C-alpha cells in the first residue's frame, strides 16, 4: 500500500515511487517513438500539397458530382462477378478450412508435435497476407481474371475460418464426446455424432461472417486485375472519369451495406 507517513500525516498515493517512475518512463518512451515516427512521415511529405488539400478535395468533389447514372448499365456483369468471387471463394475456403481446423484443434489433432504446428502455420500464413497481395501473386501465376480473384479470396479466408473453427472445436463439451465414445463408436462416428453437431452453429456463423467480409474485399480485388467491380473502378481512375468513379463507389457502398444486413439477418436466425 503506497501510504507514507509524512511528518505525522498519512499521505496516500496511487503508486509507489518506483511504480510511478517506471510508469513515466514508459510514457516517455511511447511519446518518443511516436514523435520519431511522425517525423519520418513528415520528412517524406510534400507539405505544400497538404496545405493545398482542401482546394483539391473541393475540386474533386465538383468533378465527381453528379455521378454518371447511366453508367450503371455497364456495371451489371462486374457486380455479378464480384458476388461470385466472394461466394465461391468463401465456399472453397470453408471446404479447405474444415480439415485444417480439425488438425489444429488440441482435442482432435492426430499429433500435437508434428501436425498441429503445420496446421497453425497454414492458418497464420494465409491470415497474415491480405487478399490483394494473394491476388497479385495469383495474377502473376495464373493470369488476370475472376478465377484469380476466387482463389485469392479462398486462400485468404482459409486461415480466418480455420482459426475461428478450431477455437470452437476446442470449446466443445467433452462429456458429450465421452458419451458417444462409450457406446463403442469408431473415431469417425465420434466426430460425426459427438463433435460436428456441437460446432455446426459456430460453423454457419463463421461462414456468413466471412462471406460478408469477402464481399467487401472482392469489390476492390479488381484494382490489381482480379476481376469484379474493382476493374471498372481502376479503369475509371486511370482515365480520371470522376463521375464514373463516384457512381462505382456508391455501388460498392450499397453492396457492403446490403451484405452486412444479410449477414446480420442470417446470423440472427441461426443464433
Amino acid at each position, binding site marked *: 500500500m503506497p501510504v507514507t507517513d509524512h511528518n505525522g500525516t498519512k499521505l496516500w498515493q496511487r503508486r509507489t515511487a518506483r511504480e510511478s517512475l517506471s510508469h513515466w518512463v514508459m510514457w516517455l518512451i511511447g511519446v518518443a517513438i511516436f514523435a520519431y515516427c511522425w517525423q519520418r512521415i513528415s520528412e517524406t511529405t510534400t507539405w505544400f500539397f497538404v496545405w493545398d488539400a482542401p482546394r483539391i478535395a473541393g475540386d474533386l468533389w465538383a468533378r465527381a458530382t453528379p455521378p454518371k447514372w447511366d453508367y450503371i448499365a455497364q456495371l451489371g456483369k462486374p457486380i455479378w462477378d464480384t458476388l461470385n468471387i466472394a461466394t465461391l471463394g468463401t465456399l472453397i475456403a470453408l471446404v479447405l478450412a474444415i480439415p485444417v481446423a480439425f488438425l489444429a484443434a488440441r482435442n482432435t489433432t492426430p499429433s500435437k508435435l508434428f501436425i498441429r504446428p503445420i496446421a497453425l502455420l497454414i492458418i497464420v500464413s494465409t491470415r497474415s497476407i491480405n487478399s490483394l497481395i494473394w491476388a497479385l501473386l495469383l495474377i502473376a501465376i495464373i493470369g488476370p481474371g475472376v478465377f484469380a480473384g476466387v482463389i485469392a479470396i479462398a486462400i485468404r479466408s482459409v486461415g480466418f475460418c480455420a482459426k475461428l473453427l478450431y477455437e470452437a472445436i476446442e470449446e466443445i463439451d467433452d462429456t458429450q464426446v465421452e458419451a458417444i465414445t462409450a457406446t463403442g463408436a469408431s473415431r469417425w462416428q465420434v466426430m460425426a455424432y459427438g463433435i460436428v453437431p456441437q460446432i455446426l452453429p459456430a460453423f454457419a456463423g463463421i461462414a456468413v461472417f466471412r462471406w460478408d467480409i469477402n464481399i467487401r474485399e472482392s469489390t*476492390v480485388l479488381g484494382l490489381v486485375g482480379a476481376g469484379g467491380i474493382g476493374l471498372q473502378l481502376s479503369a475509371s481512375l486511370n482515365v480520371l472519369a470522376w463521375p464514373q468513379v463516384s457512381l462505382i463507389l456508391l455501388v460498392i457502398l450499397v453492396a457492403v451495406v446490403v451484405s452486412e444486413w444479410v449477414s446480420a439477418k442470417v446470423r440472427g436466425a441461426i443464433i
Partner: protein
Amino acid sequence: MSDTFDVQARLGKPWKKPPFVRRAWLRWTLIVGFVAYLVAAYLTIDINWTRVYEGLERGKQFVLAFTSPDFTTRSGDIYAGMVESIVMTVTSSVVGIAISIPIALGAARNIAPLPIYLICRAIIAVSRALQEIIVAILLVAIFGFGPLAGFLTLSFATIGFLAKLLAEDIESMDKVQAEAIRASGAKWLQWVNYGIQPQVMPRLIGLSIYRFDINFRESAILGLVGAGGIGATLNTAFDRYEYDTAAAILLIIIVIVMALEYLSGIIRARVQ
C-alpha cells in the same frame, strides 16, 4: 404421457430425421436455387485452363522461392518499405485510438445524448463502410503520394473499428458502478474516469493491440495505390517476376504478424 402415443402402430415403419427446413417446397426451392446459382456462377467465370496449366510452373517456382528467399538484392528497398509500414502503423494506431475514445463515448447510447449519439454513429458507419484501399485512393488523390495518405487512411479505419466495439462494450457495462460514482457528486469527466474507464479498460487495451496488428497488415497493401509502405516494393517484385524477393517480403510480414499475435496474447492475458 405415453398413452397418447401408440407404439404398436409405430413399429415397423421407417424413421427419418426430420429435415432442417420443414416446409418441403421451401427446402427444394433453396436447394435448386443454390445449385442453379453455382452452375451459373461457374459458367460465367470462364477459366482459361491452358493458362492455368502454364501457370503451375510459375507457381512451383514461387513455392520454391520460399525455400530460398532473397533478402539481399533489394535489401535497401525492403528495409525502407518495412520501416515506412511500421511508422505508419504506429502513428495511425496512436492517433486512431486517441480519436476513437471520445467517439466511442459519444456512440454509447447509455451515456450520450441523442444528437451526439447520432453524429458519432454516423462517423462510425461511414468509416466502416469505406474500405481502407478505397479511402487510400481518394486520399492519395487529395494529399499526393506518400505515407501521409497511408497514415490518414489507417487512422480513419481505426476509428470505425475501435469506436464501434468500444461503444458496444460501454453500452453493456455494469450500470450500478457508474451510478455509484455519479452519486458521489462527480463531474462528467470524473465520472467517465472513475465509473466507466475501469470497466472498459481491459477491452480497450485488447482491442487496441488487435487493431495495431490489423493496421500493420493493411499497411502492407496501401503501397499498391501509392500510399506508402512495403506494398510498393512487393508490387514491383511481382511485376518483375522476382519471386525470391517477393517471398522474402511475405516471410517478413508473416513473421512480424506472428510476433505481434504472440505479444498481444501475452498482454491480453496480463490485462485480464
